[in-house]
């Protein structure tokens, strides 16, 4: 069955399910978020410094 066109009832069901059946936050999610942010901030600081010192006018 193709999902072309409006799927209003199906979308309503899906959206309600998305909100009412949310799984509890788990430890691995904390780790995923924490480590991504740590590496992201580190990349921003290190690359940012290198780029500003050696590359940008």
């Amino acid at each position, binding site marked *: 069955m193709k999902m072309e066109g409006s799927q209003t009832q199906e979308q309503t069901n899906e959206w309600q399910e998305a*909100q009412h059946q949310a799984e509890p936050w788990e430890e691995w999610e904390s780790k995923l978020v924490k480590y991504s*942010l740590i590496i992201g901030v580190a990349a921003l600081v290190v690359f*940012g410094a290198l780029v500003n010192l050696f590359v940008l*006018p």
Partner: protein
Amino acid sequence: MAEEKKWYTGMFSTEDWWSFWIGLFFVLVGLIAAATGVDISGWVIGFEKWVDISNALQPDHAGMMSGISSLIVSYIIFTIATCVGAYFMGMDMKKYFWAWTIIFWLSAIVYVLSRHAYIQATSIERADFGIGWSLSIGGAHYIVALFVGLLIGNLAPKSFREFMYHGARPEWFIKIAIVFLGCKLGMKVVDSAGHALTLLLVGACATVAAYLLFWPLVYTLCRKGFKLTREWAACLASGISICGVSASIATGGAIRARPIVPVMISSLIVVFAVVELVVLPPVLTYTPWFQEPMAAASSLGLTVKTDGADAASGAITDQLMRTRAQQELGVQWEEGWITSASVMTKIWIDMFIGVWALVLAMLWLYYVEKRHDEKVQKMEVWWRFPKFVLGYFIAWIAVGVLGMTVIGGEAMDWGIHPFESTGRHLFFILTFTSIGLVTNFRKLAEENMGRLALAYGLGLLLIIIPLGWIIAYIFHNGMMPPTVG
């Protein structure tokens, strides 16, 4: 019957590959022209600013043929090229041909009318045109094309709208244009300017930081703020923070989400991208961002969430900022650099989608779902890799290397300019018209889309745009477009 997926699967049947083939075919035509001196590329139609409409059309190599002949030849050649692609992609040829024809000629008419000197001439150009005033709206043709597309896409009868979808392929058209854009950076290498390589490097750095900051913050907002399931939160986080529809689909596939999830999210992404496309370019041009044009453009690559809308917003910003610079600063920035900056960050983001999808797939399969019968295939990184990016880099390297060696800069510019500049602009306006045609604001009125739109909008306003601006500034501050002359 399903077949085992190989590395070459889809090479002649997917739109991504066909932007590679068509883009590089015309780049090759330009290279042959440059190498031999035989003019097989100068026919590409250019749309000039005018007061006398007989001057509105001109082939890239002026004098090669009349303007109207150039327009007809361009239509014929690009129709053949895209129809070949459409055929191998299994499209309904009759519908594609007619929808494409309407889009081409509609875009051409809009382009001509919008280039009137009273609309687009800068204050410096008025004397040349013999006019006392002008609106100086650089890029007006793009905005008009977008709105004409939106009018048809939202108000025309449903059967006509759906018919036009067959030819409205904004992602395909913009990817062809981006392959042509690779030639521009190749020419910059020939000119020994370090701009191109600098842009490549800083774009990569910005992308790494953006991925690792955007995604976890938006994911947390969706899970803890809006109490969404992991399936929804992951797809929405990717859609808002990485690259819109493609990231949403890639993430949905990676975490084995039901397809309805990325479908609903993608409907929103397309609408928001158009709103950003209209709002952000004037915001960047008429605020202190004007002092940092390359950083401003790079921020578009980080904040506008489809390839088409990002390149389109870069093109509008390019026009608006160059017009303002010429009028207020008396400086003529070289065309295409601001566009290139917006595209470069998006290209890096596109390249990393496959890697991020692989990371999420492994996480979900091995730690979340714990499905031990299923194996994650590392080939997913290649399968999801945007093939048009290969075309972009091949064009860049080919033009750069050959222009510095056997062909020479001047000959290379002569041969490749019709596609690098004129052809690129043509495919840009086709993209704008098509974006308008496929953007359906009715989606926002559908039940429960309002709350999804709120989650999307808050993520964009509170996280993506502010952080995107900071990251773009850190990695691009002080960079200016090269000047002409």
